């Protein structure tokens, strides 16, 4: 009986979803069961252990997790820039219909910058300290065949202008260390969008910046996304940023995605105990009465990850089953929010409605495990 009700509910929400998907088109990026390992002398570290996720044009998808969970390794894997001793051991990275992992090095190089760009965490180390920012920007344009010589210089100035750098023409002659942190990150973003990419992977783009600058940089990214129809894969540990700027989010833990869905669901009704834990770590401004609950313990040893659910050792709600059997990522029934949203005709709200969780507490609907 209850099963039937759920089916009904599902049907009512999947209909508008299909409409929405048609509007947004096929994903520009679809990562499928990606695996990346690092060979250390202690053994193989499975930094990325079979993650799947997709990003549609015009959409911001956040990949959230603690440091060491493998989110940066995932980002570098998509770019095929995993530094040795790391290597991609399996899966697919389908970008615009082609599997990036099957491309030759030269073909992959033409993807980088022109189709997929990357913004790094620390703008000071991401820029070559010994070259002027103008030269690095012009070099980028020239490499991507966008412009050369004088035209490239003009384009470079225009780009700096577009990312909100005042007196752009003068800043061309500055060395990275002569700029403030926020300006440097703007330069990095200018270089990232120089090749007019379809997808920008932003790896902790605001972590190295002052809090006041974080919003500015995120707003810049959001503005560029709107103007240029970019898709953004946002790698971050900051749930505040996720809540404000992402449409969908995937929570990563110990190399796996443990929860995935619209940001609103994740923030308001997190299902996975880890996601709930993450939320409870965020201090609430003006609400000193709401206590902060840190998640105890630390990310497991990835050479020998725990049997069963990888979060079980730290999970306050772990059951015996959790320590024996690895849960699968399963599609969850619609929440009150999605049902209400649907009935109120908000079907085009950001992030869609599908959510998946990898947890024995939420057996989900079955058959959707990946």
């Amino acid at each position, binding site marked *: 009986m209850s099963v039937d009700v759920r089916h009904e509910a599902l049907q009512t929400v999947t209909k508008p979803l299909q409409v929405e998907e048609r509007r947004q088109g096929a994903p520009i990026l679809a990562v499928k069961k990606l695996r990346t390992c*690092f060979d*250390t002398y*202690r053994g193989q570290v499975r*930094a990325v252990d079979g993650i799947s996720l997709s990003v549609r044009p015009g959409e911001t998808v956040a990949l959230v997790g603690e440091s*060491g969970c*493998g989110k*940066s390794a995932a980002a570098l894997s998509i770019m095929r820039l995993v530094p040795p001793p790391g290597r991609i051991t399996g899966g697919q990275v389908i970008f615009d219909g082609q599997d990036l992992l099957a491309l030759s090095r030269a073909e992959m190089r033409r993807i980088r910058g022109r189709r997929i760009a990357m913004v790094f965490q620390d703008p000071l180390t991401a820029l070559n300290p010994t070259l002027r920012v103008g030269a690095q920007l012009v070099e980028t344009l020239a490499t991507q065949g966008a412009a050369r010589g004088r035209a490239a210089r003009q384009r470079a100035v225009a780009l700096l202008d577009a990312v909100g750098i005042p007196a752009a023409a003068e800043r061309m002659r500055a060395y990275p260390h002569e700029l403030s942190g926020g300006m440097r990150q703007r330069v990095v973003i200018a270089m990232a969008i120089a090749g007019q990419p379809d997808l920008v992977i932003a790896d902790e783009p605001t972590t190295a910046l002052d809090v006041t600058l974080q919003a500015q940089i995120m707003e810049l990214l959001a503005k560029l996304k709107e103007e240029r129809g970019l898709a953004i894969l946002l790698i971050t540990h900051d749930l505040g940023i996720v809540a404000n700027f992402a449409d969908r989010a995937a929570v990563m833990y110990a*190399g796996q995605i443990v929860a995935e869905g619209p940001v609103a669901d994740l923030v308001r009704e997190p299902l996975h105990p880890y996601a709930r834990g993450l939320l409870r770590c965020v201090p609430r401004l003006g609400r000193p009465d709401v206590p902060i609950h840190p998640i105890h313990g630390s*990310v497991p040893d*990835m050479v020998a990850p725990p049997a069963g659910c990888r979060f079980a050792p730290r999970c306050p709600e772990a059951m015996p089953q959790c320590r024996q059997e690895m849960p699968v990522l399963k599609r969850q029934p619609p929440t009150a929010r999605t049902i209400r949203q649907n009935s109120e005709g908000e079907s085009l709200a950001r992030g869609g409605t599908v959510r998946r969780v990898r947890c024995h507490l939420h057996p989900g609907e079955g058959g959707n495990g990946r």
Partner: protein
Amino acid sequence: MAATQTQPVGANPGVRPIDARPGTLKLLLANRVAVGAGLVTLGFVLVALLAPMLSPYNPAEQHPEAIRVPPFWSPGGSTRFLLGTDGLGRDLLSRILFGSRVSILLGVVVVLLTLVVGACLGMLAGYYRGWVDTLLSRVVDTLLAFPFLIFALAIMAVTGPNLVALVLALAFKGWVDFFRVARGDVLAARESEYVLAARGVGASNAYILFGEILPNIVPPLIVLAALRMATVIIAEASLSFLGIGVPPRIPAWGTMVADGRGSIATAWWIATFPGLAILLLVLSVNLLGEGLRDALDPRMRR
């Protein structure tokens, strides 16, 4: 990224790095090259100690009937003189075995001397700063601008070949490296949390410097000592080769190569074998030093 954080060793700010470095010996022993190098070095030390027992002949004994006899495997050679004889008919093997003594002795003495002087001055300069530091750093700058070999040569030329002058000439600039390492490390340690903590509970300067800081700067100094040893051995050999190092009556490898220089066309072995001995000893000392560096001080790993 997970992988970069799985290194078992790594300095944690605020934690005394020496405590965060377990199993130094284990790491060193796991390095087969370093173990091999250590054994060869040990072998050289044993040879130096036991030279009189190991040598078939007195190194100064001349065999006028056997001048420039080639090594035993060459035509004309015999097992009487395994590595042949030199221009005065002295047994090359015996001379090489005895030659290890002066190389190792001078190496150890010079390195210990420069280590103590350099580390003490460096620690004082780094800890007290002020005019002591300024003065010593100026002196060091001047010495750094000085071509060592030329200077050693000049001293040795004036004093003639004698061991005391040789030690002083070799040590004259050698302490600078220890000074720089000790000073830099003390400067860094001075501001570290464990020193601030010790100061907070009212520890004396002397205690902080020798009780707290010294144990932490010993590993890089040991590594440097091993690498300096290699340099000193080559420098001593070079001076001896030029005829102004070890006095001629003491068998030394550099002198032996110089002796053989004139007859390389007819007797290649005289200059070749002592040089091989230098190469082998210096190589093992260098490898041992690098092994120590990897095991003791991951920060210096390059």
